[in-house]
């Protein structure tokens, strides 16, 4: 039992694992490949159930529910044009969720790596900027960062707001990546620490106490990442939609 606790999955791991270094890029690659294999198997299985009118395959049904959930999230936070972001959000959600589940059972997972999370955050934030420029034009998008229109000596405040907004945009990367990293990596550390407490009586305390909470964390973190990305997209694209709707209404009248 002791050997199992030391060498087993992360939820049973001892203090040795706590001091272990982050894996190399090949290790991270292997874990990403592992997550992708899981997703590929699930998707292939789910695809078989798409041919019928009513999805009886439980995996297909789950994917359908996930799709509808993401669709609802995109439409409710971004608007009708938010449907075009569904594939991106689905990919983020699936990668984060499956990565988090892997983190429950293995000593490491892609989402427990800050570099991996920073990569995803950079994609999300850069894409938000790209969509902002597409929707409002480069100047219009930059104008968003200056806050309300001020005149005279108050223009200096606009400059200050612009600087703060740029820092805020950069910090979105940090917050998105650190939040996920902190939750998953911190969850590992918490489980390992509690397991250490129960090692002497051969009871995996971390598993018993924290497994359900960690499971909830897996779900919530995937949700938070995608929802925040939706909110960021909404902030930079909703003006263009409003104007488009106003224009459409004016034309109709």
């Amino acid at each position: 039992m002791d050997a199992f606790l030391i060498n087993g999955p992360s939820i049973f791991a001892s203090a040795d694992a706590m001091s272990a270094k982050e894996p190399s890029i090949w290790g991270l690659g292997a874990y990403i490949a592992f997550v992708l294999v899981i997703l590929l198997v699930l998707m292939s299985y789910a695809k078989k159930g798409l041919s019928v009118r009513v999805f009886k395959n439980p995996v297909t049904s789950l994917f359908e529910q996930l799709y509808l959930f993401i669709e609802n999230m995109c439409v409710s936070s971004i608007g009708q044009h938010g449907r075009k972001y569904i594939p991106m959000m689905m990919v983020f959600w699936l990668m984060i969720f499956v990565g988090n589940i892997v983190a429950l059972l293995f000593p490491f997972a892609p989402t427990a790596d800050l570099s991996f999370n920073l990569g995803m955050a950079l994609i999300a934030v850069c894409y938000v900027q790209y969509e902002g420029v597409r929707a409002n034009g480069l100047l219009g998008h930059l104008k968003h960062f200056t806050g309300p229109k001020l005149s005279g000596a108050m223009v200096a405040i606009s400059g200050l707001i612009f600087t703060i907004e740029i820092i805020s945009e950069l910090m979105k990367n940090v917050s998105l990546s650190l939040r996920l990293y902190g939750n998953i990596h911190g969850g590992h550390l918490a489980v390992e620490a509690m397991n250490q407490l129960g090692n002497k009586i051969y009871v995996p305390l971390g598993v018993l106490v924290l497994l359900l909470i960690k499971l909830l964390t897996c779900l919530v973190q995937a949700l938070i990442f995608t929802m925040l990305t939706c909110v960021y997209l909404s902030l930079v694209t909703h003006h263009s939609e409003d104007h488009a709707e106003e224009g459409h209404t004016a034309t109709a009248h």
Partner: protein
Amino acid sequence: MSNSQKSSGAPPALLYVAGLVLMVGGTYASLNLKIEAIEKLNEQGLPLDLGKTVAVIGVFLILFPAIKSFFLNPLTEAIETRNHQLEDTFSEAENLRAEMHKLRTDYEARLAETEAEARFQIQNQIKEAQNLRQQLMTEAAERADALVRQAQMEIEQEKTQAIATIRTHVVDLTLAAAEKVIGENMDTDKNRRLIAEFMDTVEVAS
């Protein structure tokens, strides 16, 4: 896939190439490049590797179009097809319901029309029968009156005739009685005329 769901990003081939380049470049950077600031972060407990980050960006650039074309497009298509089928079914059911409602309305209207017509016919028949009855009653009354009048006339005639006969008999009897009393034939034309004149003055009780 509907227009609203079409991605606004770069073409998939470009994403694949860019992803591959970033993966290779990131891997190379992770293995060979050391940045002092990042090393310091690592020492402080933040295990950051920008090479990995670049490689991960590359992986995601490949993943987005790959997962989309492999699974999300078929899934979206299946959901939309099913939704359209359901919409069609509901629309068809709604049309059938409207048609049924229309048929029912027509049927009810026709039924009401038929009922009204039947009621009109019945009323007409009743009116006709009442007219006929009235006519028959009138005819019967007229006929009865005629019969009564004829009977009264006949009675009157019979009465007159009977009175005349009685008068003749009374004259005969009177003459016979007078003849017996007097003992001689008094049956002369003058006597007969006197008796008749007398009889005319006498009122016979009817």
